[in-house]
């Protein structure tokens, strides 16, 4: 258009598709355990909060969980696809997938849609049963670039905030109960500055012999 600003009625702010629904997910490594936490908000078109019990973390098997942020329909569909692929793997190999193997599968599934991606960013958290239940976590972007680490990974709308709280509160080699405290405080604090995530939280702490799942009561705003 030639010269001058567009009239106000025609001005439209561009919104990222990744902010349409809203999410915040953290995973942390502890001593022979991992924890993965998410918020529970489900919003539509950024403004309307429609549900406060939205599942963003999915169990693949007893020692493997995957959390997905981003567009809700894509994260739900991806979770279903991953379940499909893991079921087939388990039927053919008569064993469950290692977290690292699963993370590579997730990466491949995402990259297959490189030029028309799923608008979701996953976090994989688990314990490697073939290697002494060693903790494994990794985050990924929406086209499957993995970033495995031995401390923590975050994803969601307000990553800076989540990184900030984790950086200050995280310590290596925490026991399951301590890890729960740290990750719970991190997720509740991290979502406070973000209007698109929050409205409660859920935490799974995965150890060799059990998984403890707790729902968090947070600020319902």
């Amino acid at each position, binding site marked *: 258009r030639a010269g001058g600003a567009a009239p106000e009625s025609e001005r439209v702010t561009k919104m990222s598709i990744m902010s349409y629904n809203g999410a915040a997910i953290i995973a942390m490594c502890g001593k022979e355990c991992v924890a993965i936490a998410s918020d529970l908000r489900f919003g539509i078109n950024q403004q309307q909060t429609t549900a406060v019990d939205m599942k963003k973390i999915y169990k693949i098997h007893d020692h493997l969980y995957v959390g997905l942020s981003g567009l809700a329909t894509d994260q739900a569909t991806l979770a*279903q*696809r991953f*379940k*499909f692929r893991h*079921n*087939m793997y388990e*039927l*053919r190999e*008569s*064993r469950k997938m290692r977290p690292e193997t699963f993370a590579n599968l997730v990466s491949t599934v995402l990259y297959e849609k490189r030029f028309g991606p799923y608008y979701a960013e996953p976090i994989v958290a688990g314990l490697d049963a073939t290697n002494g239940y060693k903790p494994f976590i990794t985050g990924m972007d929406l086209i499957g670039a993995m970033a495995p680490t031995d401390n923590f990974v975050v994803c969601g709308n307000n990553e800076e905030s989540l990184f900030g709280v984790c950086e200050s509160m995280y310590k290596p080699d925490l026991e399951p109960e301590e890890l729960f405290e740290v990750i719970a405080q991190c997720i509740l604090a991290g979502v406070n500055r973000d209007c698109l995530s929050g409205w409660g939280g859920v935490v799974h702490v995965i150890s060799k012999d059990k998984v403890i799942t707790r729902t968090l009561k947070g600020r319902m705003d």
Partner: protein
Amino acid sequence: MARRYDSHTTTFSPEGRLFQVEYAMEAISHAGAAVGVRTDEGVVLAAEKKILSKLLETSVASEKMHKLDDHVGVAVAGINSDANILINSARLSAQRYLMTYQEPVPMEQLVQTLCDQKQGYTQYGGLRPFGVSFLFGGWDKNCGFQLYQSDPSGNYAGWMAAAIGANATAAQAILKTEYKEGMSLTDARRLATKVLKQTMDSTKLEAEKVEMAEVSWKSDAKQAVAYRVLKETELAELCDQANKEAEAKAAAGKK
């Protein structure tokens, strides 16, 4: 006369027979027997192992029994490589249904999908039919525990008890007399073992020659079903029982 009509799978003979399908069934009649018994508590599948060499690596996978999904298992009789193709196909089909409807595939739908695939090989393509018969055992919410049998023609039927493979007709006859409505799962396991013993070549049944799997409630809570393969110890006990029963019967008969 038959010679002219049996080389093409997709041609009827003047008598209205599909020879290739019949020849496939003939191949299956030489394979290890498999027996299935359905009860209200679960479905039992038992099979005779044909490959018994000591050199065989006993891996996790089994020769005759395969899991198709958490709620369905299948026993195979026939050409194992043909079976593997169909089993993979059935597994994918079950997962696709689960993905779309977020609930486990109803048994008959799974069986029908697989049988439709088998039927295709009797009508188009000019490829030979699959030389496999299956016994499907499983559970779904609408019809409870079910047992289905399918053959190379793509025909299938639901049964209370059925047998495939070697001596299937003899096994079926025994099942007809011995099967009782309202049988318990324990009785079904015993019946399956007994029938296998009577149709197998050997006089004494040994646990290494037999495979057994079942789809039953995971616990008394009856919240979920699971496919499980019976352990060696359970098999040994069942075989022992079957052998003793047979001996007692033989002794009584001699008197």
